[in-house]
């Protein structure tokens, strides 16, 4: 009798386990049938379908590619685009995107948030494509400098007068201490 009870108990546990498994499979399945418990990574919107390396490889090794390229670019001036972080962003983040690094909609953070891996790339690098290369207010003479405190607010292109500016100090000191 005791043995029968034990066997029944085991059977019940097995049935409950199977039921739970079946339920979970339904619960996490998206309408397309793919499991939705992986992060939703936005794909490039510029028509590009292939990354610089196969997707699986990129998932595993993108950090190594970027790190390698980083040192080559900074120290040796090698500026190939293939593994450049700038190109990742240019391709994967739409130009008009409002998503910033940290948002789930941002290409990098969509996965990094999910995996709980924090990165500091975007403390210095841009997390979005650059709007336009600043053509700059390239002056034909000296121009007012707006917010820049380092120069003079002058209008004449060339003047023989010494403008009373921070740079006009009678020493070799610049405007900065």
């Amino acid at each position, binding site marked *: 009798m005791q043995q029968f009870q034990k066997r029944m108990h085991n059977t019940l546990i097995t049935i409950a386990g199977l039921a739970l498994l079946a339920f979970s499979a339904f619960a996490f399945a998206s309408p397309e049938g793919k499991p939705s418990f992986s992060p939703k990574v936005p794909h490039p919107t510029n028509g590009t379908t292939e990354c610089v390396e196969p997707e699986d490889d990129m998932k595993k090794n993108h950090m190594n590619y970027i790190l390698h390229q980083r040192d080559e670019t900074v120290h*040796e001036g090698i500026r190939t685009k293939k593994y450049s972080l700038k190109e990742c*962003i240019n391709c994967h983040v739409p130009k008009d995107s409002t998503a910033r690094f940290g948002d789930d909609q941002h290409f990098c953070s969509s996965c990094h948030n999910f995996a709980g891996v924090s990165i500091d790339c975007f403390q210095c690098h841009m997390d979005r494509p650059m709007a336009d290369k600043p053509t*700059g207010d390239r002056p034909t003479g000296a121009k007012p400098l707006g917010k820049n405190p380092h120069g003079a607010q002058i209008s004449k292109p060339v*003047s023989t007068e*010494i403008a009373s500016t921070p740079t006009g100090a009678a020493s070799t000191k610049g405007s900065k201490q």
Partner: protein
Amino acid sequence: MSCNDVNVSRRSFVGQTATAAAALTIVPGVFLHTVAEAKPVDQAVTSAVRWGMLIDTAKCASGCTACVSACNTENGIASHGRPRTDQQWIRKVTLRDKQTKHEISLPMLCQHCESPPCVDVCPTGASFKREDGIVLVDRHICIGCRYCMIACPYKARSFAHETVDLTVDYQPRGKGTVESCTMCVHRVDEGGTPACVEACSEAEHGAMIFGDIKNPDSEISKQLVEHGGKQIRADLGLNTGVRYRGI
């Protein structure tokens, strides 16, 4: 007669060969020069070139800050309204002789020394000199100790005290690291000229010349040969890449 003909043709053959040989010897030289000016993107910089600048203080207009604003625009340097701590890669300096009251104006920037004190003192190796003589900070490695700022005799480096609002993607900058003039390395690697030099020329002052000081045919080398170029604090023996005329 036929003998003469042969001789003529032989002479012309020898002459032609000599011309061809001369052309062949010149062409590689020209070709190498071109490569040095704009290196292929996938090749590392070499010590075959050394980038430098020659600044003519006689042409540098007092009060003009075209180079400063061009630098700020190019590298996305913006003021936080606190001049004492704002970043500054290039600044205008006025020198006055106390005896004669003669004043000269000049832009002061990283002098890109051959033996940079900032590189000597850096505890992490973040401060480094590229093969082509450009002195840079690798901000991936910089810990923001500011030792290099103290070591620099030209006060050329700045510390990013505040979060940077980036406007350009080719010049990543961030809070907590030291930065200075990169000689617009992103432009130079593509065969371009630094923004300040371009702006100075566009402002029709032409006080700044940029080029390869190792190439005797470059404009800067010719000017240096003809007029010379002084180093600021030459006594330190740093062999600066930025030279001045008229100081």
